[in-house]
């Protein structure tokens, strides 16, 4: 483009001079009524009060747009850099040369090289500000500061964009001491979207040059009818101490902070209400699947994340619509569940763009498809209809079909039937659940776990008790084998009972004399087993001492001794006589048995 450095000059003085003056104008080509910026930069050591001297510029209207200064300190001392900015608005077409700009500091004069600028005739850009805006009555363009609310169109269709603009005009005659505060307009019946902030520009209104800052909003009517975009308000503080010089800081007018302690006169400026007529969308030619979308240049795509999947394997499907229009209010397009698939909606996302002051966007509808049967499948194209307000017609867009190859799933593979020979595989055309069961012949209500009771658990203790018993028995058995004292003591009562049984048998056979030795042997054997001693060498004193150590009561000890005495006496007395105790053989046997039981239970267990 025509943005170029139009002129660079060195100082006019001899080499070694310490002041450099440069002049730059951009753009190099500008239409009549347009704007070019002339920047004069001075570097070196010079007086702070110095100002450049512009040559006569009859073909331009010139405004000073500000100055900026910077200092640097080096080994050669301090130096400064000063920039003077001017705005040039061409009046006539042609190629013009700006004569050398002079800069005087002290006694010396420095000049920049001449600068050339080309001014073209451009009908579309001549006086653009006023030609594209609809002025509202009652706004005084000769005021030093005023605001103006405008719309790009006052008759729209439902959901068609209306661009509303707030212009803040100032010609620099009044200074502003605090950041203006902007209150957006109320607009009932509209959905609003803030548009990006605009660059400042200069416009000529009734022969006066204004710096214009603009704020824009897009409105979308939700229903037909007559609506109003309400007044917007700007609160600001005007410097009432007098006229202030034009300041380049106006360029970022709405974003700049002057500080909260401004001085001056508070002023509130209001725009007028703007009526907007909202037309209903035409009924004629409206497609059946029209869902209310209004826009332009829409495109539709349908994509699957995979084209080959197994039965039961999810396929992610994305339907995307993009173009100009208000996508936030768009309802989801109808997407029928394809045959052989189960389909679920999995989410919606939308992005909004505001390029070139047009609200556009992209909306994504995401679905999950789960194949039910194997085979080659085609998802039919999806169609979406919208109304194009520019052409005042309905349009229908369509996606491309999607071809999917569904393979048998893991569970499906076992069902594949292959027939031997040259035939084809049997194709599974559809799957469904197995059919319902008939009425049961017998009602078999389930009892749950109520049948498991205490008895059931208790019965499980029996096998465990058997194991414990087995362990005990086996240990005892091993001890009986290895410990003779334990074995004899354990068997003593049983052996005594066995011998007494022999005595009873002798008694029954009438061999009464033989009874007493048998009883004596039973008793002595019992004591000997308990003592782990030989019965033959056992004396009465040994027995008495042993039993006394075991804590036998004197009474029980006496009974034992009596039985033994009876047996001894009977063995050596004449035939037919009884023992000294007068006990018969039967009584002696029973007395001996009783004595063994008593000792075994009380003292020798």
């Amino acid at each position, binding site marked *: 483009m025509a943005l170029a450095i139009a002129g660079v000059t060195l100082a006019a003085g001899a080499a070694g001079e310490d002041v450099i003056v440069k002049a730059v104008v951009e753009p190099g080509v500008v239409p009549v009524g347009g704007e070019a910026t002339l920047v004069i930069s001075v570097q070196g050591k010079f007086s702070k009060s110095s100002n450049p001297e512009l040559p006569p510029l009859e073909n331009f209207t010139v405004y000073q747009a500000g100055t900026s200064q910077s200092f640097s300190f080096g080994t050669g001392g301090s130096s400064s850099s000063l920039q003077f900015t001017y705005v040039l608005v061409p009046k006539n077409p042609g190629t013009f040369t700006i004569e050398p700009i002079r800069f005087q500091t002290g006694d010396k004069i420095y000049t920049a090289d001449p600068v050339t600028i080309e001014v073209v005739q451009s009908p579309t850009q001549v006086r653009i500000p006023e030609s594209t805006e609809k002025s509202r009555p009652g706004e005084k363009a000769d005021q030093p500061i005023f605001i103006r609310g405008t719309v790009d169109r006052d008759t729209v269709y439902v959901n068609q964009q209306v661009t509303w603009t707030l212009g803040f005009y100032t010609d620099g005659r009044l200074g502003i001491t605090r950041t203006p505060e902007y209150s957006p307009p109320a607009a009932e019946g509209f959905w609003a979207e803030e548009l990006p902030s605009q660059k400042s520009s200069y416009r000529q209104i009734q022969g006066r040059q204004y710096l214009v800052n603009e704020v824009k909003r897009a409105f979308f009517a939700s229903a037909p009818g007559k609506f109003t975009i309400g007044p917007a308000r700007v609160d600001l503080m005007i410097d009432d101490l007098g006229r202030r010089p034009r300041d380049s800081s106006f360029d970022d007018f709405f974003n700049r902070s002057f500080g909260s302690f401004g001085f001056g006169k508070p002023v509130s400026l209001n725009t007028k209400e703007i009526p907007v007529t909202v037309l209903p969308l035409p009924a004629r030619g409206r497609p059946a699947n029209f869902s209310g979308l209004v826009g332009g240049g829409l495109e539709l795509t349908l994509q699957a994340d995979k084209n080959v999947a197994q*039965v*039961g394997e*999810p396929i992610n499907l994305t339907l995307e619509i993009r173009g100009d229009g208000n996508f936030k209010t768009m309802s989801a397009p109808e997407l029928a569940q394809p045959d052989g698939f*189960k389909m*679920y909606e*999995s989410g919606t996302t939308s992005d909004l763009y505001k390029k070139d002051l047009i609200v556009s966007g992209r909306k994504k509808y995401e679905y*999950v498809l*789960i194949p*039910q049967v194997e085979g080659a499948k085609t998802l039919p194209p999806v169609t979406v209809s919208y109304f194009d307000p520019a052409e005042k017609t309905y349009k229908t867009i369509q996606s491309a079909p999607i071809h999917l190859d569904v393979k048998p*799933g893991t*569970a499906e593979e076992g069902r594949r039937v292959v027939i031997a020979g040259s035939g084809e595989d049997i194709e599974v055309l559809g*799957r*469904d*659940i*197995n*059919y*319902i*069961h*008939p*009425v*049961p012949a017998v*009602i*078999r*209500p*389930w*009892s*749950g*776990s*109520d*049948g*498991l*009771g205490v*008895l*059931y658990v208790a*019965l*499980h203790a*029996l*096998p*465990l008790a*058997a*194991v414990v*018993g*087995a*362990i005990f*028995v*086996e240990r005892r*058995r091993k001890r009986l084998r290895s410990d003779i004292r334990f074995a004899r003591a354990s068997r003593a009562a049983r052996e005594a009972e066995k011998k007494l049984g022999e005595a009873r048998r002798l008694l029954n056979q009438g061999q009464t004399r033989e009874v007493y030795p048998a009883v004596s042997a039973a008793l002595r054997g019992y004591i000997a087993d308990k003592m782990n001693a030989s019965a033959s060498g056992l004396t009465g004193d040994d027995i008495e001492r042993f039993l006394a150590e075991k804590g036998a009561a004197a009474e029980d000890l006496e009974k034992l001794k009596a039985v033994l005495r009876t047996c001894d006496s009977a063995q050596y007395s004449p035939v037919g006589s009884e023992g000294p105790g007068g006990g018969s053989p039967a009584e002696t046997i029973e007395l001996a048995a009783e004595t063994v039981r008593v000792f075994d239970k009380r003292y020798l267990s």
Partner: protein
Amino acid sequence: MRRPYVIAAIAVLVSAVSVFAAAELVSARPAKPSPSVAGRFREVFAKGNALYEQGDYAGAVEQYVSLVGAGITDKDLYYNLANAYYKNDDFGRAVLFYERARRLAPRDRDVRDNLALVRLQLRDKQFVRDENRLVRAVAWLHDNLNAKEMTLVGSLCYLLLCVLGIVFVFRDSAAVSAAYRWISFVSPGRLAGLTRTQDLLLALAVVSFLFVSTGVSAYRKTAQESGRRVAVVVGPEAAVFSAPVEDATLQFKIHEGTLVRIREERKAWVRINLPGGLSGWVSASAVERV
């Protein structure tokens, strides 16, 4: 030498008696419904089937649900009701009643097939076990036996363990030695060159593992039935929050048919667990216990 043999025989006899007694208890069923109730059941069941056959799935659901509400617990009833829910596109409740039917009749092929088919169509990915062969064998038992059958298997393993324990105690006796000579021909341990004691210890270890596995399985199944900790998402979508309050952080969402385990219950909220460590609170009405 006779005594250990007799004791072992008595132990086996006692164990067998206890198992038979347990089996009898396990198979105990509640009193048969009266003829009038049974007749009413068959009548409504048949009406539900007829509506199903006519394609009136909502009507069939209504009939079957009335029987469930009357306290009838029958696997065919649950199965048919699940089918009717499936045809009504209510996958959540279809899974719920297939699961209930499967709990009663884990080896019913229709129930298993239909449940597998419905799971293919669920939105949430379903948890799949990845286990080694040994665990798979136990898991197969777990999947194919209901709680009572598993309890019986657990009891049999217990009895076998006790009998083996008794045999091990008397392993030095002549009777056990004689029996081992014949029986051990089928013992892998004997074939691998193990001694009698080592072989019996190996057998004890294997049977102990079976007993513990089947016992744990039986316990879990019984606990599930009595505690009903497993639940199914019955609504289209259930939001899982970080706490049982409305303004808690939304953690994730689960969808109909997904199985969850209930850990805790508070008023209108239940705390759920999902495989993979996910956990949170959902509205109690969003899930239904199996």
